[in-house]
Every structure is written in structure tokens, then in C-alpha cells.
């Protein structure tokens, strides 16, 4: 029996996919696991593999077309198998499907002749088929129908208590924007209450905004391959109170900012010496900053953490997200265990990943689940700026340009290569002194790169 190929879920937040490119054409042989198409998700362009072997009998969704998850995009079958019934369903599910270079069977589907009933009845049949999930029995397990249901964005079923659902409806809160604090992420009364209280305290003009989020709810990341191991330590009542109180004043993640000036002369010397020794050892200032940040994080585990409401999660590795501008957006490829990598390795990895980020070829595990981020706008001539924390990380470092500045050293005015960095901290996890100590280590190491050796 022929097998339907459906739009797969290739990223945690994907709702629909655009067919970027077919790697096979109709009539080509395909086998299980073989890439047959490239799909543009909301995040990246991903390869899609065949889940059945046979011949790609029919392409239903053509390059450039977008369809929701679960919709049939092609049919795989035996070369001479009858696929008209399945095509009929595809026609119903996707009424506007163009029918180019059809082989006999496809034409039958378009006109619904063959053995089928008069046109009116056939139209009814199509309408009926439309309401069904158009996937054959053996594929339902591979692509649960839940993914295609309209009431579930990002494939996550909203779990909510009846009371909370009613309260949210009354308050005009969009449940999809919320994280529940009940078992299995169930949204319960207290989540709605705190969202409402939060919305009120923000004095927003539109109290019925659909963007109300529960501020203290832990950010729940999907299971990510290669994520850093961690330990969860229960939060104290004081810590929860700090979290609650700060959140009501500033929003879901209470940011505060620490700025320092770093003298980069020795880092510059270090960099140019390396390049002189061997052109292959050429590294950027950003590479050095990332290495220094990673090493400092290991020395200050309190910053390499994430607020989880009832616990604080401390990561064992320094996985640094590096903000990379891409066309109409921003993505943060991750340098995993940056503390254990050499600066040259880090540089090469950033270069390679940034390149793939720009062509949207990163896999989710390559951009989800960093423990700390670095954003550098120095190359744009920005002297200093503040960056917004990428939850659930506890902090982000905004790095400005390096500029020669007259400074006072030993009571004399001298010119030094100065760089401003600003760390944004999640006050629920990182207090002022904690952040300052971390930044001190970063500053000290950047000003004395030799410390990287000890």
C-alpha cells in the first residue's frame, strides 16, 4: 500500500513548513532514511528523510509552497501501485494543489471518475475526507495527529485546569503565551492570578493583552540533544520572594546591568603575537572574549545558571551562545564547553556555525540550550549597549567596540585600547555582587590574557 509523506515537525516551535527544495523527483527510487526534500522551518532549513521505501510516485506540495504540519506533501509507493484513492484525499486536504505532469492515476483523482459516484456525492466524500487526518495507519505513530490540530500551536497541547481556562478567558489572557506551574506544566489558578496581577502592576494601556506571561514560571526548554548536564537546587523562600517582588516591578525577567571598561592592550598584543607566530593562529577579539567568558563562568558557577521557580539550575558546562545577525533576525549558535576549547578552536567553530546560521542550516541543538550568551556589536562601531537576556539563561554580555581612549595611568594621561562591556543579569538568579565578581574575573583575564594559561 502506498505511504503518505507528511510535513514533519522539524523544530520545537514549527507550525508549518515551506518546501524549499525537492531532492528527488517523481519516479525516483527512495529508501527509508534517505533525504528527499529540504524544508524551511521557522528557524532553519532542514533535510527531510523518507520514512518508507519505494518510488516517489507523486509530489503534492511543490517548491516554495507552505503547508501546516501533518499535511500530505507526497506519496511513496510501488511503481505500479494504485494511488488514486490517496490522491483524492490529498485533493481534499489541499484543494488548490496544482496537478502538473500527472501520470494517469493523478488525473483520475482530479476528475474523480473511475469507479466513484456522481460528482456531487464525490464532493461530499472529499469534504468528509478533509475532516479526517489524512495519514495511513502505519504513519500515525510517526506523526501524531496532535501536531496538525488547530488548537495546538507548536505541537504542544495546552494543559489547563477548567477553572484556569475560564479565568483566562475572562481576563483575555492567551493561554498559549503561558507556562503552567502545575504537574506536567498544567496552567492552574495561581498562574492566571499572577499573570493578571502582573498585567495590572505594569499599568499597560491594554489590560486584555494577549501577551501576559506568568513571570516566575520556569522557562521550559524542549529536550535538547547535547544540552549541558546540570543539577537543580531548591530555591529558598527568600530567593522566591526576591524573584516574585522583582518580577512585579520590571517584567518576566528582571534585568539589571553592570558595565565595566576593559583595557584591551595586552589582549591586542596577545592576538597579534599569535598571528605573527602562525597565520593559522589568527583569532578575533570576540573569540578571546568568548574563551575568557567561558573560563570565568566555570569559576563563577552562580552565573552559569537558570531560574526554575522552585529551584535554580546550575550548569556544569559553559555553553556559550554567540549572537549572530542573520537576514531579518538573529540566531545564537552555541559553542558547547567553550571553557575546554582553545581560542583557535572556538574561532573556527564560530566561523563555521555563523556561516551555516546565515544560510539557515543550523540544527536545533546547535542554537538551543546555551548557558550564557555573548553579543558583540563592536564591529558596527557601537561603543556600549545593553542586551536582553535569552531565557532561561541568567545573563548575557554585551560587548562594544575597542577604541583608543586617553586614560590616566600613574597620574599621566596615556592612550589605551578600551572596550566597554555590559552584562545584563537576571536578578532572580544573579545578585549585583555575584555579577560584579564574575565581571571582575572577565575583566582581569582580558587585561591579562596570560591568566588563561594558569
Amino acid at each position, binding site marked *: 500500500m502506498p505511504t503518505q509523506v507528511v510535513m514533519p515537525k522539524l523544530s520545537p516551535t514549527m507550525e508549518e513548513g515551506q518546501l524549499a527544495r525537492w531532492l528527488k523527483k517523481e519516479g525516483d527510487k527512495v529508501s527509508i532514511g534517505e533525504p528527499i526534500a529540504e524544508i524551511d522551518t521557522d528557524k532553519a532549513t532542514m533535510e527531510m528523510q523518507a520514512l518508507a521505501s519505494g518510488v516517489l510516485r507523486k509530489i503534492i506540495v511543490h517548491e516554495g509552497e507552505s503547508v501546516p504540519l501533518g499535511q500530505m506533501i507526497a506519496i511513496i509507493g510501488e511503481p505500479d501501485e494504485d494511488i488514486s484513492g490517496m490522491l483524492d484525499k490529498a485533493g481534499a486536504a489541499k484543494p488548490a494543489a496544482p496537478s502538473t505532469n500527472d501520470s494517469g492515476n493523478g488525473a483520475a483523482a482530479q476528475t474523480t471518475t473511475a469507479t466513484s459516484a456522481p460528482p456531487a456525492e464525490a464532493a461530499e466524500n472529499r469534504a468528509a475526507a478533509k475532516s479526517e487526518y489524512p495519514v495511513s495507519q502505519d504513519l500515525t505513530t510517526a506523526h501524531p495527529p496532535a501536531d496538525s490540530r488547530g488548537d495546538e500551536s507548536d505541537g504542544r497541547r495546552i494543559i489547563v*485546569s*477548567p*477553572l484556569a481556562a*475560564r479565568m483566562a478567558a475572562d481576563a483575555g489572557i492567551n493561554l498559549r503565551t503561558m507556562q503552567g506551574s502545575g*504537574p506536567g506544566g498544567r496552567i*492552574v*489558578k495561581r498562574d492566571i492570578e499572577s499573570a493578571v496581577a502582573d498585567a495590572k502592576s505594569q499599568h499597560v494601556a491594554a489590560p486584555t493583552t494577549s501577551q501576559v506571561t506568568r513571570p516566575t514560571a520556569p522557562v521550559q526548554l524542549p529536550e535538547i540533544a547535547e544540552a549541558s548536564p546540570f543539577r537543580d537546587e531548591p530555591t529558598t523562600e527568600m530567593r522566591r520572594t526576591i524573584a516574585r517582588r522583582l518580577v512585579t516591578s520590571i517584567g518576566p525577567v528582571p534585568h539589571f546591568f553592570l558595565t565595566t571598561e576593559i583595557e584591551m592592550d595586552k589582549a591586542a598584543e596577545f592576538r597579534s603575537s599569535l598571528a605573527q607566530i602562525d597565520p593559522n593562529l589568527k583569532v578575533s577579539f570576540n573569540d578571546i572574549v568568548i574563551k575568557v567568558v567561558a573560563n570565568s563562568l566555570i569559576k563563577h558557577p552562580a552565573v552559569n545558571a537558570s531560574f526554575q521557580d522552585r529551584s535554580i539550575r546550575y550548569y556544569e558546562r559553559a555553553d556559550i551562545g554567540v549572537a549572530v545577525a542573520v537576514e531579518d533576525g538573529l540566531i545564537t549558535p552555541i559553542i558547547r564547553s567553550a571553557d575546554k576549547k582553545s581560542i583557535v578552536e572556538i574561532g573556527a567553530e564560530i566561523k563555521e556555525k555563523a556561516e551555516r546560521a546565515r544560510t539557515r542550516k543550523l540544527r536545533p541543538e546547535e542554537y538551543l540550550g546555551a548557558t550564557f550568551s555573548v553579543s558583540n556589536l563592536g564591529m558596527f562601531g557601537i561603543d556600549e549597549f545593553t542586551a536582553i537576556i535569552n531565557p532561561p539563561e541568567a545573563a548575557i554580555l554585551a560587548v562594544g567596540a575597542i577604541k583608543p581612549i586617553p586614560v590616566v595611568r600613574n597620574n599621566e594621561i596615556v592612550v589605551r585600547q578600551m572596550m566597554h562591556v555590559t552584562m545584563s543579569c537576571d536578578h532572580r538568579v544573579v545578585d549585583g555582587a555575584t555579577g560584579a565578581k564574575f565581571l571582575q574575573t572577565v575583566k582581569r583575564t582580558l587585561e591579562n590574557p596570560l591568566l588563561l594559561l594558569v
Partner: protein
Amino acid sequence: MAVITMREALNQALKEELSRDKNVFLMGEEVAAYQGAYKVTKGLLEEFGDKRVIDTPITELGFAGLGVGAAMAGLRPVVEFMTFNFSILATDQIINSAAKMLYMSGGQFNIPIVFRGPNGSAFQVSSQHSQALESWFAYFPGLKIVMPSTPADAKGLLKSAIRDDDPVIFLEQERMYGNKGEVSDDPEFLIPLGVADVKREGKDATIVARSLMVPYALKAAEELEKQGVSVEVIDPRTIRPLDIETIIKSVKKTNRVVVAEESHPFCGVGAEITAQISVQAFDYLDAPVKRLSGEDVPMPYAKNLENLAIPDVKRIIDAVREIAYLD
């Protein structure tokens, strides 16, 4: 008002009703000369004589039928089962005669009878003698089911049951006969059937408990108060007719419910209460209704296993914390 035991409160109710209405009489195994297996009928033979306080042979089906006949003839029998485990033998008379007679006689015969005695678990009397049978009787239309949890309720409800014109199953609890409480000595102290009692007010969760589970629920609520959880305890007191309105009102306030019972879970009274809550208060529930029942096994004889077989204070606390999303 005096502080007396539940045993004494029941005794007072019987005594007052025997004095008030000459049609009231007691019947059962050992109720007269031995003054009751649990001494509930203490002193009554002496005061009212052997026409009003009658020892029967060990023939539950027989004396239950006798009682139904006496009720049809205009008397108001109070039939004691030494324990409700023995009422199983009498169920044909209770269910097929007492419960059905008013309906099947086209309204000609009311059956103003009370079947009373201890129900539920005692201590180490094993599987056949530790059964909570309320769901059996509550299942049938035509019977009223009463389950008091305090001496005052026991007295006020038993007096109302004796004065009621329909058959009433009055379920005491052996473990509770010694429980003490303030009880009115007003001979007209009556508690109407079908009215639940809010044993404790609270706002974060409701425990619906009856009989033995009420003191446990109150103790749990006390403990939870210290943990910052305000718990309301509702005692329906009468299972049929059930005062579901009081329960629903509480659920609408607290949004979370634990239904605690010592009886088995399957087809139990707790299941019925839970179902009614889910229909009538669905939009007010912040958590699934949590049922805490006796284990779905015959009651073990061994003390350690017996303790595990019915809910206790700790399990009630855990259940409330669970539905209040505190763990």
C-alpha cells in the same frame, strides 16, 4: 450542654425517642439483657421493659423482616445490627421490602424504620468484619443513609431518623463510640436529614469526609493550616439525600477537593460525589478531584497492613498538598 461520648449520645437519642413515642421500639441481637454489644442500649431494657427493648435470635433476615412488618402495621422499629457486616444477611428485607414498599404499594405503606449499628473498620477484626457498606444501601432509591461523625450529630440525626417516615440506614462507626463532644440535652434537639455541615471553614481546598474520616480531615486541616493552607472540611452527614449544594458551594470557593472515605473506591460514595462535582462545578475546578478511599482489597488482619488499608491524616495532608499544587 454536656461533653459526652458518641455512645452516650446515641443512648440519649434512643431513650428520648422511646419516652416520647410509645410506637418506638428496639430490636436486635443482645440489645436488651446484655445492653448492646457496644453498650449503646445501656439501661433501656430496665427503663422501658421487654416489650419495647427486644432481644432477637441470631437471624438478621428474620428480624429485619419482622421490623418491616411492624413498620407497615404502624410501629416505629429501631433495628440494631451488631455490626453492619451482618446486615448483608438482611439485605433482601432492607432492599426488597423496606426500600420498595412505599412505591410498590402505591403510597399506602410508609416504612418508618431505622436500621442502625456500627459500619466500617474496627480494630483487627479482619476482612469479613471491617466493611464500610454505605454505597450498597445508597445505591437503592427508597433508603435514606445517615453517617454521623460527632456525638452531637449522632444524637440529632438519630432522633430525626426515628421520626422520619422512611426507612433510614443509620451507620455508626465502631472506632468512634468513645469519641467525645458537646451534646445538647434538649429533647427537641434535632438535626435534619439531608443537610451537610461545614465542620471547618477554609479557602484553599475542600475535604469532603464522612464518619471516621471527619476527625482525620480536621486533624489534617489543622496541620495544613500551619503549612499555610486553609482547608474547608465538609461532612455531608447524610449520604441520601445528599446535600450536594453545600459541597458545590465549597468547591466553587476553594476550587480543589479531596474526597476521603474508608470504603472501597470502586462504585463508592466518593465516586458519586466526585462525579457530581465534575458535572456541577467543572468550570470551578483547578485540579482533578482527588479521591482517597480504602484500598481495593479485603481488609487485612495484620495491624500494619490494616493501618495501610484506610486513609490516615498524613495521606489526607499529602492529597491536599497535591491538589493545591504544593509539592
